[in-house]
């Protein structure tokens, strides 16, 4: 009996091994054939299901398109846009990012009266899934709610939407007009303010209580608050997303098929979608993963059609390619940097000296770090405007590094300002405020020692900081790197004055996944304006403020270039390599995948291709 069972087991294992080998050698496609690698092209096959991996520990947890602070993660807004068509959105068109496209409800906005009025025309062919047309009233409904409860809206900052709109007017069923509180740069206003607008199904949602009468309750502040509170209460019941009738009225190309408590979301085609981006696929499953390791294990076993790998695994790229996947780093619309604390009680005077910041920037080998530490998946940050992808916001002057890696240049800058190398450490030997002296607040024999709070949990970041430490030491700068969890770094790097306790931090890094993701227009008012909310290092420069002001309020595209070129040279922060949003691994027979730099996804353009399809 025993001897008879063993060969059978061996046969089963041998067959399984042979099958596994065959799958590996054949390239593993949905139909079992070999598919040439290409992101687009091929003969589309209607139908099919794609499983996409969500970022590690990301669980979609908010469906209501007015997200409260803390619920505005990209995966939440990306999913919302599948159900609720955005009015304007970041659409990649060639090398440019533009606010309108086939998937947006709004058409090109028209500015008038010295850029103090904007008229927004809407497409007239879009309907809600209950058959009602999407109209200007639906945007008014959204506007009334955010105006009544702006503190509960994640995108609100004082002075911006809805504060900057003096009057909201419904011109006709498919046109709205906004009277602004002053003249704005149309590009900035469209890109960073109008993209916040949403059309919400007023005819289905405008009730103050569950089961209450639908009306125009949003047109009074109290009514809008009551409606908003009711919708928010529904949104706080994550377990009901898949069944709550409220979330079934949609105008986007997709609707919810299943939304599990674990964060797994399955969307299916909206059969009543009237727009032009009709999906090819039947379903898309957005799968949450507890950690990047578990995603990697499942990815290697073929359990995900569109996933990601750690940059360190890029060296084994060919193994995935042999298995029928293509590798494509997803470059984010972001910049990465180390924050300098200009008010540091420990090294504030050093941070305030431009020549020291220039010397340090010369010691950042961005290309080396990008190529070696990040295996080519990161791109250098050259200033406040992302250098990749190259867009209309990047001037030719911003496309090259004003402070290339040059140890000699860094040493020369320090030497020219009174710093001498003693035993490998730079010390100030010419204190004073003269042009060739160390600068105000720097004492004789003061060493150039700095402390950096850096985000832990990433091998790449740890290695990058070690490269930086080594590099700075070549000019005699001692850097102590203290690694902490992300929220500790954020909690310890708060804007402070020298009188505040805890203002002894010198530098801070929280850019393992990119330090700052921009909306469409990369204006830096939140980062580099004096006293701005995310200006953690207290950078203050009247000229920078003036240039940022011009980006927001002047009708001149050159304003962005002037601002970008100035801050690239002024170094309000230390520019660092910008890691990819993720290093994507995509099945070869899955095409039409455009990796939007703003990290949103549009599965309506994805499709499978036929067995044996070529490009």
């Amino acid at each position, binding site marked *: 009996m025993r001897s008879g069972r063993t060969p059978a087991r061996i046969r089963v294992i041998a067959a399984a091994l042979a099958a596994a080998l065959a799958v590996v050698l054949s390239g593993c496609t949905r139909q079992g054939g070999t598919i040439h690698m290409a992101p687009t092209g091929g003969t589309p096959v209607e139908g099919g299901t794609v499983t996409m991996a969500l970022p590690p520990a990301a*669980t979609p947890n908010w469906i209501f398109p007015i997200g409260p602070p*803390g619920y505005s993660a990209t995966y939440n807004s990306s999913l919302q846009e599948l159900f609720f068509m955005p009015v304007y959105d970041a659409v990649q068109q060639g090398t440019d990012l533009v606010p309108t496209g086939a998937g947006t409800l709004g058409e090109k906005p028209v500015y008038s009266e010295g850029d103090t009025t904007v008229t927004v025309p809407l497409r007239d062919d879009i309907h809600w899934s209950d058959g009602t047309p999407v109209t200007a009233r639906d945007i008014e409904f959204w506007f009334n709610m955010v105006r009544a409860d702006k503190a509960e809206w994640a995108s609100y900052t004082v002075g911006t939407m809805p504060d900057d709109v003096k009057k909201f007017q419904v011109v006709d069923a498919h046109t709205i007009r906004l009277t602004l509180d002053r003249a704005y740069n149309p590009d900035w206003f469209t890109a960073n303010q109008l993209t916040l607008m949403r059309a919400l199904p007023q005819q289905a949602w405008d009730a103050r209580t569950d089961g209450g009468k639908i009306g125009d309750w949003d047109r009074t502040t109290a009514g809008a608050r009551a409606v908003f509170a009711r919708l928010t209460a529904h949104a706080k019941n*994550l377990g009901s997303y898949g069944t709550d009738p409220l979330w079934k009225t949609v105008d986007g190309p997709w609707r919810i098929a299943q939304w599990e*408590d*674990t964060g797994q979301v399955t969307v299916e085609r909206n059969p009543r979608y009237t727009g032009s981006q009709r999906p090819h696929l039947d379903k898309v499953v957005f799968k949450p*993963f507890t950690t990047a390791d*578990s995603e990697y294990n499942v990815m290697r*076993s073929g359990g995900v059609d569109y996933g990601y790998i750690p940059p360190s695994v890029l060296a084994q790229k060919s193994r995935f390619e042999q298995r029928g996947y293509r590798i494509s780093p997803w470059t984010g619309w972001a910049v990465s940097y180390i924050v300098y604390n200009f008010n540091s009680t420990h090294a504030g005077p050093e941070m305030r000296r431009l020549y020291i910041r220039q010397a340090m920037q010369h010691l950042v080998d961005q290309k080396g770090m990008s190529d070696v530490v990040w295996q080519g998946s990161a791109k250098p940050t050259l200033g406040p405007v992302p250098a990749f992808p190259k867009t209309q916001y990047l001037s030719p002057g911003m496309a090259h590094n004003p402070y290339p890696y040059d140890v000699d240049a860094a040493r020369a800058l320090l030497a020219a300002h009174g710093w001498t190398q003693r035993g490998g450490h730079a010390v100030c030997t010419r204190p004073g405020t003269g042009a060739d002296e160390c600068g105000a607040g720097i004492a004789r024999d003061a060493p150039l020692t700095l402390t950096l709070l850096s985000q832990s949990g990433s091998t790449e970041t740890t290695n990058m900081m070690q490269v930086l430490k080594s590099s700075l030491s070549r000019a005699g700068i001692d850097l102590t790197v203290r690694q902490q969890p992300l*929220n*500790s770094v954020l909690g310890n790097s708060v804007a402070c004055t020298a009188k505040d306790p805890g203002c002894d931090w010198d530098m801070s890094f929280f850019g393992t996944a990119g330090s700052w993701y921009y909306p469409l227009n990369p204006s830096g008012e939140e980062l580099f304006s004096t006293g701005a909310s995310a200006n953690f290092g207290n950078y203050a420069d009247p000229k920078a403020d003036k240039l940022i002001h011009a980006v927001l309020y002047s009708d001149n595209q050159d304003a962005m270039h002037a601002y970008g070129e100035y801050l690239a040279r002024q170094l309000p922060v230390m520019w660092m390599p910008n890691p990819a949003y993720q290093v994507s691994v995509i099945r070869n027979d899955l095409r039409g995948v455009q990796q939007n730099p703003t990290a949103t996804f549009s599965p309506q353009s994805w499709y499978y291709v036929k067995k044996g399809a070529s490009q």
Partner: protein
Amino acid sequence: MTGFLVKRLLQALVVLFLVTIIVFLLLHSLPGGPARAILGPKGTPQQIAHFNDVQGYDNPLPVQYGDYLVRLFHGDLGQSYKLNEPVSSLLGQRLPKTLILTVLSTAVAVVVAVPLGLLQAVRRGKPADYALTALAFLAYATPVFFLGLIFIIVFSQAVPIFPAEAPQGTSIGSVFSGFSGMVLPIVTMAFGIIAMFSRYMRSATLDNLTEEYVRTATAKGQSSRRILVRHVLRNALIPLVTLLGLYLPTLFSGALVVESMFNYPGMGLLFWNAAQGSDFPVLLGVTLVVGVATVVGSLVTDIAYALLDPRIRSVS
């Protein structure tokens, strides 16, 4: 016995109360606070102030603790701001999943480790004992993540017999309906426990084999098998039972590495992610559950001892 029980219950309540105070203080001493962790670098000062106001974090600590206790007595463990779900609902989803994993892997470990330990003791100093000892040391010394990775590479990729991830549904039914996905996590977790338990079992059996009652039984003419199964096994199991009692909190707190590796959202990962994101309500909720498990485990052990041994009752 009633007095003993009342006294132990009161002690347990005091311990739990102290646990909540210590955890509460430790959480609030973390730098940064939850607002920045939740809102991220884009959170404005106004949003941070609003968040702290809504959550009550701008109140003095004693007031916050008092509010927490009041809510606790009303059965409200709070709402996770990271996961947008009530903590009680999260615990309701994760705890059963964790228990399935930990209880099954412990059961597998006991079923395998007890005979192994007995066999090693009986064959002491012989090749089988040496071989099993070497294997036990190897299993004990192998990090769980490494073992899991090997299992995934072999059984999910090279010979795809089992999935590389555990079942993903929220219900218990979904775990059992996709049970093939549980095989690798259970085996990975059981491996280290088998190594530990078998060593305890071997040692306890060896101790008992030298006891006089074994000699007496042998002198009475009982067979070796009967002595081993009816007398030695029962006595040798006592240290293992104590070990299992001490293991109870681990069963509830989950297995972070295994959960993380096999994408199985249980208690371990819930706690880890909450700690990363300063999700205070979840951290307090999980700590409370594990604290209760620890105290209950200890209480049950004490009661069992008291029932078995009248001397403990009288001393108490």
